C-alpha cells in the first residue's frame, strides 16, 4: 500500500502529503488527518482489504463521523435468532465502496447476508444473534466514513417498485411476442407475391394469434387499467386510444384470420405495446432515481430519542413513538424529535432548520423548543408537548403541501396534446368506418379493417416515446451537473421562467460562517483543537479551517459562552475577558491564553462560487433577477451591490415572501424561486418553478422542483439552459411524431395501409424521435 494510490489519477503529483484515508492535506509527515481516518484505515487494513484504496475511482473515502442514531429499534426479528436491518448508506459513491462494505461485513461469521444496492444506496443486512448487534454493524460502517441511516420503505414506494417490476415483466413478454410474431409476419409479407399458399398464410396467422393474444392480454394491462380508470372519471387520456386501438386490432385480425383473409394486424398490435412499454419504463426510471435521492435525505432525518423511564434509565425510543409527557434526554449534538419544554439544563440550540438563522439560540429551563432543532452545547431534559404529526415542523410541512395544491393544476404539454389528440383519432376512425360503409358500399367487416388501420397508424407510438426519451436524456445530463429533478413537469415550467428570485442566506451565500481573518498557524491549531469538541457553527468553521488539528481532551463547554481547557479559553468577548470589541459586524471568537495577547477570529458567510458568473449568465439569457431576503438590511445591501442586483428587499417574513410571489404570478410573471430555508418553503411552493440547494431543510427540498448539489451556483444556469433545450426538443419531437402520424392518416383512410406499411411507419417515427432526443446528451456548457 503506497500513498500514491490515493492520488486522483488525473492530478499531477502534489508536494503536500495527504491523509491516507480521506485524502485531505496533512501536516508534516503524518499519515492521517484525524483519529477517525486512522482507525478507518486500521479496520480496513486489519481485515486485509487494503486494496480498497486502489479500487477507488475518482472518489475519495470520507472522513468518519460519529453516529447519533440507535439502530436497535429498526432491526426486524425474522425468527430463530435471525435479524434483518435495512440501511440507507450516504457516501456510497462507487463500486469499490460496495465491495468494501460487503467484504468487511462478510468477515463477521454471524452475518448471513450483506448486499449493497448501488443504484438505491441501500444495504440489506441479515445476521444471526441479537438485535443489539444492529448498532455494531452500523458503527462499523460509520467508522469507515459512511453515514448509515435506518430505512423503511414507505408504502407508496413499495407499491411503485412493484409497478416498475410489472412494467419490466410486461416489456419482456411483449418483446418476446413481438419478435416471434414479426418473424412470422415477415414470412407472410414476402409471400404476398403469390409464393406462399393460402393455407400456409392462414396457419401463420393462427400461430401469430396464438402468440400475440395472450401476450397482449398480459402486457397491455398497465394501459387497459389506466384507460378504464380515466373513462370511469369521464375523461380520456393517451391510454384510451392505445387500448381501443390494440384491442380492436386483435379482434379484427382474429376475424380476418377466421375468413382466410390476406392481412392480419397482430404484429402491429404487439409491437405497438412493446414500444409503448419502453417509453413508459424509461419515464418511470428517470423519475425514480430522483425519488431515491430525496428519500435518502429524508431517511437521515428519522432517528431515535432517549426517553427517561420511571426508574431514571434512558431508553431509546423512535421519534415516531414519542408521546406527550415523555421526558427526553437530549445529548449535545442530538436533534430534537418532538416539540417540548426544557425542564433542566442550559444549552444552545441550532435553529437553522426552522428559522434559517445561522447563529445558535440559548436554551434554559422553561424555554419552548421545537422538533428539528439541534442541541449543540450541553445535555438538556425536555418534556414532550407535541410529537409526530402535531409538531410545528409537521405543521409547516402541511402548509407547504397546501400551497403545492395550486401547482398541481399545471398540465404538461404532452398531456394537453394527448387530451386533444384522443377524440380526433376516434372521430377519424369512426368517420372512415361509417364513410366506407355508407358511401363506399363496403361490408361492415371490410370497413372495420380500414378503421382499425386508421387507429393503428394514428396510435401515438412515437408520441408516447417523444417526451419520456427527452426527459430521460435531460435528467441524466442534469445529474452530471449535480441537479436532481423532483417533479416530472419541472423542466417544462423552468423553460418558461422569465424572472428569478433568490434568497440570500444559504442560496446566494453558502449559509455557513467561514473563517475570514488570517491567523498564525499556532493559534489556529490550538483554537481548532478546542473547537473540535463543540458543535457550535463557529467552532465547526474553525475545525474546517484547520482540519489537521488534534482534538484537545478535557474541554469544558460553558453553554452560550465558550470552551475551556487547561486555562486556555475560546469563546465570546466577555468569556475571554477582552476589553474592546471590534467595530465591524462580523461574528467572532476569541482565544485567550495565559500570558499571551488574545487572538480574534472573525467569521463571515461567503458568496457561493460562481455566483457572479451565474447571475451574468442568467441576465444574458434575458431573465430579470431579484433578491428577497429575511435578513437585516445591512446584511443584504452589500450582497446585492456586489452581485449588481438592483431589485432587492430585506426583512421579508415568510408570509411576505409568499405574498410577493403570488403577486408576481397575478401580474403574469413566471418566477423561478431559489431558496433553502424552511421560511422559503411557502414561497417555493407558490412560485411557477422552484429550486433549492441540497443543503436545504428537508421540507424545503420537498417543496422544490429540483435540488442542486455542491457549493457552486453554476448548476442554476445549467438547469435553466437544459430546460430550454429540453422544451425545444419536446416540441420538435411532438411535431415530428404528429406530422408522421397525420401524413399516414390519409393513406389509412383510403384503405391503403397494409400491416407492412404500419410497421415501417411505426418504427421509423419512433427511431426518429429517439435520435432527436439523444442530441441533448451531447450538450456541454460553453466554458
Amino acid at each position, binding site marked *: 500500500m503506497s500513498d500514491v494510490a490515493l492520488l486522483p489519477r488525473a492530478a499531477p503529483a502534489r508536494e503536500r502529503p495527504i491523509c491516507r484515508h480521506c485524502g485531505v492535506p496533512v501536516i508534516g509527515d503524518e499519515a492521517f488527518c484525524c483519529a477517525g481516518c486512522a482507525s478507518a484505515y486500521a479496520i480496513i487494513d486489519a481485515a486485509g482489504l487494503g486494496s480498497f484504496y486502489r479500487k477507488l475511482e475518482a472518489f475519495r473515502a470520507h472522513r468518519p463521523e460519529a453516529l447519533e442514531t440507535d439502530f436497535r429499534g429498526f432491526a426486524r426479528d425474522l425468527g430463530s435468532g435471525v435479524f434483518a436491518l435495512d440501511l440507507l448508506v450516504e457516501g456510497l459513491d462507487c463500486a469499490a465502496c460496495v465491495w468494501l462494505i460487503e467484504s468487511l461485513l462478510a468477515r463477521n461469521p454471524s452475518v448471513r447476508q450483506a448486499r449493497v*444496492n448501488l443504484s*438505491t444506496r441501500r444495504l440489506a443486512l441479515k445476521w444471526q444473534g441479537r438485535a443489539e448487534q444492529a448498532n455494531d454493524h452500523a458503527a462499523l460502517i460509520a467508522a469507515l466514513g459512511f453515514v448509515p441511516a435506518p430505512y423503511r420503505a414507505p408504502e407508496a414506494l413499495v407499491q411503485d417498485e412493484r409497478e416498475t417490476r410489472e412494467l419490466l415483466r410486461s416489456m419482456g413478454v411483449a418483446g*418476446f411476442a413481438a419478435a416471434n410474431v414479426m418473424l412470422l409476419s415477415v414470412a407472410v409479407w414476402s409471400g404476398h407475391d403469390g409464393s406462399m399458399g393460402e393455407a400456409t398464410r392462414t396457419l401463420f396467422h393462427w400461430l401469430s394469434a396464438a402468440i400475440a393474444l395472450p401476450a397482449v392480454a398480459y402486457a397491455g394491462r398497465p394501459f387497459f387499467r389506466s384507460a378504464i380508470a380515466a373513462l370511469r372519471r369521464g375523461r380520456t387520456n393517451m391510454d384510451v386510444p392505445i387500448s381501443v386501438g390494440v384491442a380492436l386490432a386483435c379482434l379484427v385480425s382474429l376475424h380476418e384470420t377466421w375468413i382466410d383473409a390476406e392481412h392480419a394486424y397482430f404484429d402491429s398490435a404487439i409491437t405497438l405495446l412493446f414500444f409503448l412499454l419502453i417509453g413508459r419504463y424509461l419515464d418511470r426510471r428517470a423519475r425514480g432515481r430522483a425519488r431515491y435521492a430525496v428519500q435518502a435525505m429524508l431517511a437521515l432525518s428519522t432517528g431515535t430519542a432517549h426517553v427517561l423511564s420511571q426508574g431514571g434509565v434512558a431508553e431509546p425510543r423512535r421519534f415516531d413513538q414519542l408521546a406527550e409527557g415523555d421526558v427526553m434526554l437530549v445529548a449535545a449534538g442530538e436533534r430534537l424529535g418532538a416539540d417540548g419544554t426544557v425542564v433542566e439544563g442550559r444549552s444552545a440550540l441550532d435553529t437553522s432548520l426552522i428559522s434559517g438563522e445561522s447563529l445558535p439560540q440559548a436554551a434554559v429551563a422553561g424555554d419552548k423548543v421545537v422538533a428539528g432543532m439541534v442541541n449543540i452545547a450541553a445535555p438538556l431534559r425536555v418534556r414532550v408537548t407535541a410529537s409526530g404529526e402535531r409538531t410545528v415542523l409537521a405543521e409547516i410541512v402541511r402548509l407547504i403541501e397546501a400551497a403545492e395544491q395550486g401547482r398541481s393544476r399545471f398540465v404538461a404539454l404532452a398531456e394537453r396534446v394527448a387530451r386533444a389528440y384522443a377524440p380526433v383519432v376516434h372521430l377519424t376512425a369512426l368517420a372512415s368506418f361509417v364513410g366506407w360503409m355508407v358511401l363506399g358500399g363496403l361490408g361492415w367487416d371490410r370497413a372495420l379493417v380500414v378503421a382499425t388501420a386508421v387507429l393503428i397508424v394514428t396510435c401515438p407510438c412515437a408520441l408516447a416515446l417523444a417526451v419520456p426519451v427527452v426527459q430521460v436524456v435531460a435528467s441524466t445530463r442534469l445529474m452530471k451537473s449535480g441537479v436532481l429533478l423532483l417533479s416530472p413537469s419541472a423542466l417544462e415550467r423552468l423553460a418558461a421562467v422569465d424572472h428569478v428570485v433568490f434568497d440570500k442566506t444559504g442560496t446566494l451565500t453558502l449559509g455557513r460562517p467561514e473563517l475570514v481573518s488570517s491567523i498564525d498557524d499556532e493559534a489556529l491549531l490550538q483554537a481548532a483543537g478546542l473547537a473540535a469538541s463543540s458543535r457550535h457553527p463557529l467552532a465547526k468553521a474553525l475545525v474546517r479551517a484547520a482540519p489537521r488539528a488534534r482534538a484537545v481532551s478535557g474541554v469544558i463547554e460553558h453553554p452560550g459562552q465558550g470552551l475551556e481547557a487547561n486555562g486556555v479559553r475560546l469563546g465570546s468577548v466577555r468569556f475571554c475577558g477582552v476589553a474592546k470589541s471590534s467595530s465591524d459586524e462580523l461574528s467572532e471568537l476569541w482565544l485567550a491564553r495565559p500570558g499571551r495577547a488574545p487572538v480574534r477570529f472573525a467569521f463571515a458567510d461567503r458568496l457561493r462560487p460562481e455566483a457572479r458568473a451565474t447571475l451574468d449568465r442568467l441576465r444574458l439569457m434575458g431573465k430579470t433577477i431579484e433578491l428577497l431576503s429575511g435578513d437585516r438590511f445591512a446584511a443584504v445591501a452589500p450582497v446585492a451591490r456586489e452581485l449588481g442586483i438592483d431589485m432587492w428587499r430585506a426583512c421579508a417574513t415568510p408570509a411576505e415572501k409568499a405574498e410577493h410571489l403570488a403577486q408576481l404570478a397575478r401580474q403574469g410573471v413566471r418566477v423561478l424561486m431559489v431558496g433553502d430555508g424552511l421560511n422559503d418553503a411557502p414561497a417555493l411552493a407558490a412560485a411557477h418553478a422552484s429550486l433549492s440547494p441540497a443543503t436545504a431543510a428537508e421540507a424545503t427540498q420537498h417543496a422544490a422542483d429540483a435540488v442542486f448539489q455542491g457549493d457552486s451556483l453554476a448548476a442554476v444556469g445549467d438547469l435553466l439552459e437544459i430546460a430550454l433545450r429540453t422544451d425545444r426538443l419536446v416540441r420538435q419531437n411532438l411535431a415530428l411524431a404528429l406530422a408522421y402520424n397525420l401524413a399516414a392518416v390519409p393513406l389509412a383512410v383510403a384503405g391503403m395501409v397494409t400491416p407492412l406499411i404500419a410497421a415501417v411507419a411505426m418504427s421509423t417515427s419512433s427511431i426518429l424521435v429517439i435520435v432527436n432526443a439523444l442530441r441533448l446528451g451531447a450538450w456541454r456548457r460553453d466554458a
Partner: protein
Amino acid sequence: MDSLMILVPAALLLGLIGLAAFLWALSRGQFDDPEGAAGRILFDDD
C-alpha cells in the same frame, strides 16, 4: 412445408427459453441494481 413443422416450433421454443430466463432473472432481482452490477464484476470476491 415439412421443415416449417420443425422450424416454427423450434423458433418459438428458443424464444420461450429466452423469455423464461428473463423472467427468472427479473424475479431474482438481477435488474434491481444496474450500476452496482456493472462495477461488481471488476472486483474479485476477496
